[in-house]
């Protein structure tokens, strides 16, 4: 049995609407690209608007006359959404060309559901409620390079320069002996491209 390895590519986006081209170097013994994962680390705070009243901060000494009353409902709905931060494309030098294309989300911790902490519903369907795994692709690779392109969309949308780090995780199958290591997602592979 052959062993899966994980290659990590990391880059920082600094400008509004920045387009970043990059290469992912694969090991020479890689035979297949078996899965892709993405992640982001926000360096700029996402929420730049002032927080709502009644959050425990000292009050403004001169509040505006028309300041809204704090009417926090009993069930406080969490209005944080998971923004899409950009688009990622990966291109193989083999016949598959652009084999992976996705909108990269930034998923907040415990976001996308109301914070019903008393147990009516699970807290978040999008972050930690299911064990995560890579999106399987199953592309044979004869080259040791994958080209990638990432274009920023959150900066464009919010008309500001948002700094963040994007991580692309490329799982490859190599010719090494696996020594017993077989990752959980490998047994769940669904799509295999055969030539």
């Amino acid at each position: 049995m052959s062993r899966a390895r994980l290659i990590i590519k990391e880059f920082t986006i600094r400008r509004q609407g920045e387009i970043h081209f990059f290469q992912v170097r694969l090991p020479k013994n890689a035979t297949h690209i078996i899965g892709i994962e993405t992640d982001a680390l926000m360096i700029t705070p996402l929420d730049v608007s002032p927080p709502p009243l009644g959050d425990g901060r000292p009050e403004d000494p001169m509040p505006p006359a028309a300041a809204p009353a704090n009417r926090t409902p009993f069930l406080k709905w969490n209005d944080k959404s998971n923004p899409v931060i950009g688009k990622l494309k990966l291109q193989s030098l083999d016949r598959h060309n652009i084999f992976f294309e996705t909108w990269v989300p930034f998923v907040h911790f415990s976001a996308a559901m109301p914070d019903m902490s008393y147990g009516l519903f699970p807290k978040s369907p999008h972050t930690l409620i299911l064990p995560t795994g890579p999106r399987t692709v199953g592309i044979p690779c004869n080259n040791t390079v994958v080209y990638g392109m990432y274009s920023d969309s959150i900066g464009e949308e919010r008309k500001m320069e948002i700094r963040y780090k994007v991580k692309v995780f490329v799982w490859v199958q190599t010719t090494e002996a696996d020594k017993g290591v077989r990752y959980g997602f490998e047994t769940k592979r669904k799509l295999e491209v055969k030539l």
Partner: protein
Amino acid sequence: MSKFFSRDYDVQITAAAQTFRKTIELDKSVKAITHYTILSNREDLAYYRGSFKLDINKDEIAPDGYSVKKVMCWPTIPPDARLKSIGRRETGNGQIQFEYTDSNDGLTTFQPYVITLSVEGERED
């Protein structure tokens, strides 16, 4: 017949934007590691700020920079699905090398917290 083995190892994260290393010596009776996950007393800080590296018997299971959020999950998941499966890696020299890197981000403020590497495997008496 091998027996079930499960153990947690804590790493204190005391400073922001630093790497913390821990070398774990397994007991000689532990023959293989089959699953692992990362837990924390401040899941939000681990989720937004954490990345790690994990070697078992000098074999790279997760390379440097792999995000902690990729191996975390809520306790609402059935316990047998909560840990990441890595097949069956024999422990060999009995060493697990764990490196955790905390990175500053724009959403959280650092406070000291604890990261726990939880492993499961097989042991023989």
